[in-house]
């Protein structure tokens, strides 16, 4: 395996969101890892984006109403009668 290429803040920032989405691929992901381990500013930025993503996910989730659950169960029951 070749040595990990050094990248700067600008390049790390450009790839940050795809890094958090785990869409970068192994090599680029290692490069960002490497940068984050040495750069406090980019590290706190990454932490912020990660927490924001988590907050969005939490905010988007809602309990399924019982009316919908019943409706879906009825759909399956009907289907299984055939």
């Amino acid at each position, binding site marked *: 395996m070749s040595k990990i290429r050094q990248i700067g803040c600008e390049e790390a920032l450009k790839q940050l969101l795809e890094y958090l989405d785990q869409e970068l691929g192994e090599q680029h992901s290692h490069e960002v890892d490497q940068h984050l381990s040495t750069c406090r500013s980019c590290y706190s930025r990454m932490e912020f*984006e990660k927490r924001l993503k988590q907050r*969005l996910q939490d905010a988007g*989730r809602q309990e399924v109403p019982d009316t919908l659950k019943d409706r879906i169960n009825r759909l399956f029951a009907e*289907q299984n009668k055939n």
Partner: protein
Amino acid sequence: MTVPMTENPPQPDPDLRAFCEQEIAAMLDRLYAAALRLTKGRCDAEDLVADTIVKVLDNLHSLQDRASFRGWVFRILHNTFISNCRTRLARPEDNVSSLHTPEGEAPEQFWLFDRLHQPFLLWWGNQEQEFLDRLMAEDMVRAIDALPDAFRMVVVLADIEGFSYREIADALELEVGTVRSRLSRGRSLLQKALWDYARETGIVSGPAPSRDER
């Protein structure tokens, strides 16, 4: 619409039905979450989910591969949303051209993080943490709902559903590159909206936004 409709659909084997029922039960909260944000609560999200499941059941025989079940169901959800709800919800900013060509030149990325680190803002402790703590779930939802359709769906699938870019591309019938660019633009718009709410509600205060900030 990729779902073929036949007069007398062949019956899927009972095993496949059981699989479908199990999978739907496991993903129902996620389907509902996506339906809520697609419809912004204006067109009934429950109807959208139920209509989707009817189509899933009717077309189960055309499922190619069980591994792609989740993406297939979300594709049906999306297509059902477009055919059932969009016409009723049509707003000028969601017109066809903005739906199909949001790929115009990308303005510079808006980073909340940079705004939070502007020197005129005064914070006690950790400004990022404090900002996130003060934003309410309803601010998040409002910011998502404010996104134009084409960006909203990509952001919902990536950030709420945790789909990979490939899965989003399959569900929305887009190229992966298009998913990438819409996601980047959508998140930028989202961060801008959150920043604007934070200023409106006084979570952050400071001098009025300058012209070039707008």
